[in-house]
């Protein structure tokens, strides 16, 4: 291919030494050794789940060097937080990570509440746990389908969507929307759970447990999937620590870190669950961790439905539109489906926060891709990318 000046539809360019391509490609190609091919995965590649772009230096079928290029989906969420009151900024949190919006809801609401000293009533806390865990299950289900689709199995995502639709139907009753949910409010939640919501949730838990058994037969035990994943892309605890990776990636590496247990918030201390660990640290381990987490989330949902106390869902005097936070600085983190979701909030006592920093777990998880993908086959690099569970809007914010 080299020497022909050939550009094929998959983005393979004959490059070293030349300056074709944009700034990133040209810059990346400077360090490439002669005879190697620079491959652009993305920004609109079917296996990258959004507008992520990976530059890879290829030696035959092997990835010699890889570099993620970010920012195609930057929407200035942090800046928007500075020009809007907390109540006005809340709907943004559903848009940052569209797969687990309620974790982001919780992180921002939690940060403001921590600063303002608001304590939501107990029923609101339980509803937060319940809805957040249902949302986590739907996030993992979509990841499961998308990951298997990355590996070439197109059917399973349709099975996953059947369950996901059921969760969306359930969450729509209380949140009013199916994707970009904005359910939490400063000092509580915006709607109470009715009988229909609780009945559907109770029905859903045993239903999904049955379906997970089907998933096992359909995908987990499948020999093709196992040979694609077993031993591919090992990520150990040390690498996670260096890049700040959290969530299922870190738990698959063998460290039982889970903010729901380590820094308990909400009603999690009252729930009986244990972070899923004890899996291999390769792609297959990360696959199993997430399936195990669906099961532990189902346990939490079951306990939350059983233990849901009666009472109000808002504090007595909810913050009004002219609500001013006390001056100060705070950090509040929750465990999202992808890892530690953190909000660092600085207030100067005005209506709007002075500065808000959003800590997206996907950003750290993606950072280790360059190292993990080094020396792997291109198809394995795609498997590693999929196993990190990336949501690009969250990474670019």
């Amino acid at each position, binding site marked *: 291919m080299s020497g022909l000046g050939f550009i094929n539809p998959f983005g393979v360019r004959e490059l070293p030494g030349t300056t074709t391509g944009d700034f990133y490609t040209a810059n990346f190609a400077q360090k490439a050794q002669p005879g190697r091919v620079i491959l652009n995965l993305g920004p609109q590649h079917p296996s990258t789940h959004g507008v992520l772009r990976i530059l890879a230096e290829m030696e035959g079928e092997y990835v010699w060097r890889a570099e993620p290029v970010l920012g195609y989906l930057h929407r200035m969420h942090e800046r928007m937080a500075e020009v*809007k009151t907390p109540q*006005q900024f809340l*709907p943004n949190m559903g848009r940052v990570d569209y797969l687990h919006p309620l974790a982001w809801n919780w992180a921002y609401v939690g940060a403001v509440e921590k600063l303002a000293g608001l304590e939501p009533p107990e029923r609101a806390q339980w509803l937060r746990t319940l809805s957040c865990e249902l949302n986590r299950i739907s996030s993992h289900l979509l990841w499961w389908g998308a990951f298997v689709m990355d590996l070439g199995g197109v059917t399973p995502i349709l099975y996953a969507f059947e369950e996901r639709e059921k969760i969306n*139907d359930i969450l*729509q009753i209380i949140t*009013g929307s199916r994707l970009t949910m904005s359910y939490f409010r400063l000092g509580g939640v915006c709607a109470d759970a009715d009988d229909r919501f609780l009945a559907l949730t109770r029905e859903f838990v045993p239903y999904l447990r049955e379906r997970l058994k089907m998933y096992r037969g359909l995908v987990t035990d499948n020999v093709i999937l196992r040979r694609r994943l077993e031993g591919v892309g090992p990520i150990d605890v040390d690498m996670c620590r260096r890049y700040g990776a959290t969530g299922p990636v870190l738990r698959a590496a063998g460290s039982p870190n889970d903010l729901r247990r380590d820094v308990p918030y909400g009603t999690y201390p009252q729930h009986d669950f244990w972070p899923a660990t004890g899996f291999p640290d390769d792609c297959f381990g990360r696959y199993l961790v997430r399936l195990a987490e669906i099961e532990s989330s189902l346990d939490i949902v079951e306990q939350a439905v059983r233990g849901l106390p009666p009472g109000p869902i808002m504090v007595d005097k909810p913050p009004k539109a002219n609500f001013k936070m006390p001056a100060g600085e705070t950090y509040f983190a929750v465990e999202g489906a992808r890892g530690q979701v953190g909000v660092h909030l600085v207030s100067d006592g005005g209506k709007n926060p002075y500065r808000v920093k959003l800590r997206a777990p996907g950003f750290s998880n993606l950072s280790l891709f360059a190292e993990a993908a080094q020396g792997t086959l291109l198809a394995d690099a795609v498997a590693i990318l999929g196993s990190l569970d990336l949501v690009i809007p969250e990474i670019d914010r």
Partner: protein
Amino acid sequence: MLRAIIDNLKGLYSLLVGLSITGRFLLSPQRTVHYPRQVVAPESLASFRGPLELVPSADDPAKTRCISCQMCVRACPDNCLKVVKGEGGKAPAVWVYDFSLCCLCAACVEACPASALRFSHKVYLTALTRDELKLDLLADLKARAAKAAGGADARPPAQPPAGLEPQARL
């Protein structure tokens, strides 16, 4: 050698298991709602947030409860509301809502002291241009009142296109 043969046989068996699951689902009834031949049942949309609508006052279904206090306009993060007070009294003369900007966050609904706003369940709203999404809610309220003709707070469910049977879901 023997080990490899056994492994491959086990692998083949796992493929058969997967195929049998797929086959079972192939023969089971379809789970999707085929829009536009079928539509979602109205009870599944009970709390769905569609575009905003005005709540009629208790005595006259064509009159709004709105008192033009501008609380919703101030609460809105997207600046998608425009409320102009009419001559004499508190009733609004203009109530324009730009659905193309709205993020359906319910800040206006929660801020309203007169409970004059709520979400409709219109899931079939479509438009060809952005201007069509600038909705005149006062006209919408009058149209609904004329349609209902009686029944002070008659809230019409989501209207499926004519001639379609709703399919029960959930």
